[in-house]
């Protein structure tokens, strides 16, 4: 999976940027993205779906990535509300397996990554052993 958009320079100013270090930060991130969606008139089902996807990915950043950062921005081309979670952790060695429901290295259910991909309107991931992980999620407005 390759990113085809949104280097920091192209995407312009972030609407907000938060640290992702603790599980309280995960709550702050999902609540912030829910606020941003509601402020743009998103319906409850869309808010819940996307905020759930963000919660899954943000938790991965904290638990598996050793912490990182969270940013919200608008994609000028599509008008989507976008979220980026990135860390400088170990990265994911076998992405295909990690995306499969039921596979987990962290003692969880292993539904997080695949679930987030299903719940978001856009999903992109860049990762690899020793490269950290960067996930971009997008919500159609």
């Amino acid at each position, binding site marked *: 999976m390759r990113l085809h958009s949104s280097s920091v320079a192209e995407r312009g100013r972030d609407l907000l940027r938060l640290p992702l270090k603790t599980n309280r930060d995960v709550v702050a991130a999902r609540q912030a993205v829910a606020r941003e969606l509601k402020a743009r008139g998103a319906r409850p089902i869309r808010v819940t779906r996307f905020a759930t996807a963000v919660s899954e990915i943000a938790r991965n950043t904290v638990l598996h990535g050793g912490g990182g950062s969270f940013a919200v921005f608008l994609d000028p081309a599509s008008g989507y509300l976008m979220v980026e979670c990135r860390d400088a952790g170990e990265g994911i060695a076998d992405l295909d397996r990690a995306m499969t429901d039921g596979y987990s290295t962290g003692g969880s*259910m292993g539904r997080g990554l695949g679930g987030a991909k299903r719940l978001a309107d856009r999903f992109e991931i860049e990762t690899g052993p020793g490269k950290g992980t960067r996930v971009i999620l997008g919500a159609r407005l």
Partner: protein
Amino acid sequence: MSGVAAINLVENALLVSIQDDVTDTDIIELQDTLSQRIALEENIRGVVLDISALEIVDTFVGRVIAQLAGIARLLDAQTFVVGMRPAVAVTLVELGMYLPESRTALSLTHALAQLKRG
């Protein structure tokens, strides 16, 4: 414990309202606390989790609720989840989470009535 309101004992059931700012740590602590109380206090027949304040239930919170329901069942108590928002139900199904050990009820009144019937 933030993220979780006080635990109240009503008619042999432990009632808890989970708040929207609940963290992973809070929900694990809640699971421990409720398990202890079911085991140690006499005549507790049920646990009622009010999740009406929750805008999201992700795989972690869903898994802890499912585990709590499993623990409670082993300790001869039933777990009811009440107040689930429609958007949360839709999302849980998309995540493949069906909370099999817990029963859902539309309101606290319904949950308590079902507990009385046994």
